[in-house]
């Protein structure tokens, strides 16, 4: 049995409803679709029991066709196996719980979701925004598919010329 197959069996043993949601793409690449309601349980189980101790990055996706946001938690084990956990959030109420309690480095990655897609992340520590500038207009989320750079073109301030 390959390490990827063992991971699949261990995970679906604990969460039988995930059995058909686990895709072994190739050696060292596993993708799992996780229902948003059970995400934290699955996430914690992967970290604590399956050795997935490295958080690589979060990717936020604007899934325009299904009207959802996708969030991918790209994680890895020290042996090189990458586990990508995916959740979908409804666009009208995109709320996510922070994982900074477990991975302090997630802070910047979660702030990117907040700034660039407008996803609400609860439990983030106090701190400056990232990566957009402080004066960025409200409600402008650059990585949403319907957003165009012209939407955020700042009106020139009075008395100041940028020419």
């Amino acid at each position, binding site marked *: 049995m390959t390490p990827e197959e063992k991971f699949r069996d261990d995970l679906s043993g604990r969460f039988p409803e995930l059995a058909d949601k686990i895709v072994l*793409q*190739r050696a*060292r*690449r596993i*993708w799992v679709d996780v229902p948003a309601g059970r995400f934290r349980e699955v996430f914690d189980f992967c970290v604590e029991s399956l050795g997935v*101790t*490295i*958080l*690589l*990055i979060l*990717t936020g*996706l604007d899934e325009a066709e299904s009207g959802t946001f996708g969030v*991918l938690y*790209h994680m*890895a084990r*020290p*042996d*090189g196996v*990458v586990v*990508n956990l995916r959740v979908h959030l409804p666009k009208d109420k995109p709320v996510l719980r922070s994982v900074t309690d477990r*991975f*302090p*480095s997630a*802070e*910047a*990655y979660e702030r990117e979701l907040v700034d*660039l897609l407008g996803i609400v992340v609860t439990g983030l520590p106090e*701190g*400056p*925004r*990232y*990566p*957009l*500038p402080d004066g960025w207009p409200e409600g402008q989320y*650059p*990585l949403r598919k319907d957003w165009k*750079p012209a939407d955020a073109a700042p009106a020139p301030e009075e008395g100041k010329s940028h020419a």
Partner: protein
Amino acid sequence: MPDFGNVQIPVGPQHPALKEPESFLITLRGEKITAASVRMGYNHRGVEKGAEGRTYTQDIYLVERICGICSHSHGTAFIQAVEEIAGLDVPRRAKYIRMLVGELERVHSHLLWLGVAGHEIGFDTLLMYSWRDREVVMDLLAAVSGNRVHYSMNTVGGVRRDVDSALAETILKGVDRLEEQTKYYIQVCSEETTVIKRLSGVGVVTHEDALRLLVVGPTARASGVARDIRKDDPYLAYDELDFKIVTSDHCDVYGRTLVRLGELMESYSMIRQIVKNMPDGPITVKAPRKIPAGEALSRYEAPRGEDVHYVKANGTEKPERVKVRAPTLANLQAVSHMLRDNNLADMPIVIAAIDPCFSCTDRAVEIDRADSGPRDRMDWGRLRAHGIDFYRSRGVDFTELNRSLTRRMKKL
């Protein structure tokens, strides 16, 4: 002496040590840093959004420009994901050439870092020496790719230029010289008391904290975390090379110095293996313009640590989503931790020791003149003379002005 309590000072965003904007808010008690917070994002250029609006070929050049030093790292990490989605079988020779440029880039990056580290601790002789030697590897990169930075070697399905036997000889000669010099730097850094004392115990990240904060690259390996994507999650043909992961238990800036120096020696050995075992065959396979729907995650051990690229394709010639995590983003968040309990004066070297990525747009030494045949190379003297002639022919002539200035200088 009165107690002034805690004093907060902002450092940056135009930072004195880092040639890149980053803002630190430092809380001091006397000379000691008690807390530090980082405000990032000053260099956010919207590359990910930009990538969605461009074709895959255009994106190769866009992602290369994420960084001026590890441009090949970003380019290769991106292209690997695209090729995986497209199911392309990249020729082995192309993989070897990608590794060759990747290791030359690492040598370039580590030598550059060594100079910066020397500069930050007032050891400018080390800066002058290591940047002089860095020219050797820059010349090699220029000979291989045509460019000193932004090598643009990659294309979907392979590489754009081949390496012939004459070039291979040049590379081996250059590596021999660099290895001699690096041995000397290792001697300097392991015997020179001032270097050891200045760097030891500064910017400490314990082994446990390195695991908790998920630092990457030489920063992690200097805290005894033996992680290297080239070994852990092999890409290209790294599983065919013989090399070891260089680690150190110093957990401080000194350890990070030793790790990078050790990695230079490993890279020289790898470059020799790559040149010696370079397989014959084509350097590229034909790639489709439209990439079928799919997604892939690609990891690459850049000089500063793990580079992560995620690409989602939707069946068109443009990607649906490109996500990039450069190693500095993983390491920068640990800097606040490293700064705590250090002296304010240690701040530049602590920040520099994670080797934060600042764009290195270097001067050009080779010009291909369109009007005088291919590969007519100008040295600096000829380039300068060409500049003077160029303006003179357009009526801009400073000869008289220069003469009158010289006369005035002589009278004084």
